[in-house]
């Protein structure tokens, strides 16, 4: 009984450490707190169990979810800089993205990768969108993470534009 519980707790700790998507991480954290409170309960520390269950699996996850909902930067990494997408405000790609971020109250952060010397920094950053130009059909490919909640909405916005192709990738594939 105790061994199963210990195993489960360690299992969830390892899952938490390896999980990259924040929302799922919060859920795992709540489950972990629940298991910890069961452990406290089995050791007859009822008060601590109650505090743990109230704080660890209800209060803190809610806090984290609110904080997650408040991520306000939409980080775009662009590998193209031409007439379609540039730093100028009148380029059509920039306009599209600005319309999108304005409608969700986000701040648009654009990085052009060939300006950046430290490419490793991008691995640390939470990049939302990568723009590359396809050599095959000449379209601009918008790459988004599958875990991002916004990818459906951006896809719907970009659907009618013939110059753009939209791709959704898994978390690990995004840094080619």
């Amino acid at each position, binding site marked *: 009984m105790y061994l199963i519980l210990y195993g489960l707790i360690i299992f969830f700790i390892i899952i938490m450490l390896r999980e990259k998507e924040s929302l799922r991480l919060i859920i795992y954290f709540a489950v972990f707190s629940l298991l910890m409170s069961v452990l406290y309960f089995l050791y007859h520390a*009822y*008060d601590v*169990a*109650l*505090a743990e269950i*109230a*704080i660890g699996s*209800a*209060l803190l996850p*809610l*806090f984290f979810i*609110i*904080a997650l909902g*408040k991520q*306000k930067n939409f980080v775009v990494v662009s590998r193209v800089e031409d007439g379609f997408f540039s730093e100028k405000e009148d380029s059509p790609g920039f306009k599209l993205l600005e319309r999108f971020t*304005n*409608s*969700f*109250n986000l*701040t648009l952060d654009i990085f052009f990768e060939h300006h950046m010397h430290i490419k490793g920094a991008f691995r640390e950053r939470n990049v939302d969108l990568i723009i590359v130009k396809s050599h095959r059909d000449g379209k601009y490919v918008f790459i988004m993470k599958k875990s991002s909640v916004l990818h459906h909405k951006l896809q719907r916005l970009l659907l009618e534009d013939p110059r753009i192709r939209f791709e959704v990738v898994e978390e690990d594939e995004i840094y080619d």
Partner: protein
Amino acid sequence: MIKKLMLLLMFGFIFLYALTATAPLADSFPETSIGETVIHRGYDETASKNLVAAILLDYRLFDSIFEAGILLISAAGVLYMSRSSGFSKPFPRAKEAAVPKDSDSILAVSRILYPFMLLFGFYIIVFGDLSPGGGFQGGVILATARLISVYIPEKASENTDPLNRLEKILFLCLLSLGLISLFTRGAPFTNFFSGSVDPEFRRLFLVLLNLLIGLKVSSGLTIIFIRFIKEGK
């Protein structure tokens, strides 16, 4: 300059006070185990069947009051920080911000759950000296219930000022309730009934204390929640 000097003086005073206050404690530390003493004499001395509550609300009431004070200070800090950021918005946003509508099922479940969570929170608070729980745990449950009520449109009020005032008043009540025993029994931060009174009466002190702590904790956490949700909007 004056502010810094005052801060330095305050820190120096607290440091010196702590040094002088804790030095005799080390000598007077009892040889026998405290746990045994609490188990054997806890109910007779504090009238609390839950011995954790006996320690928190009677033997170590001084510490508990300052734990409550920590929450007061952190809520004040959150209020201060979120207010100062509310004045200047960094970028002008588009006028029609798309606010996603809450789903109806969340609304319905919140409506059903809200009164039960309140009831459970108050149960945990009031029966804190008989069963596991107490002011802090019940207060957290009340705060979670309040968070759920954010999803209920007609209940959502975003004004934190009355809550803040309530929290301060409750903290003062807590301090004064702890100090009543100074006049009735000659020792601060303990039960104001003497040990010869029936335990059923002495319970009143614990229930009152639990209620005050619970309401204080819930209002403090609710302030932090509401500021957190409102921040940046």
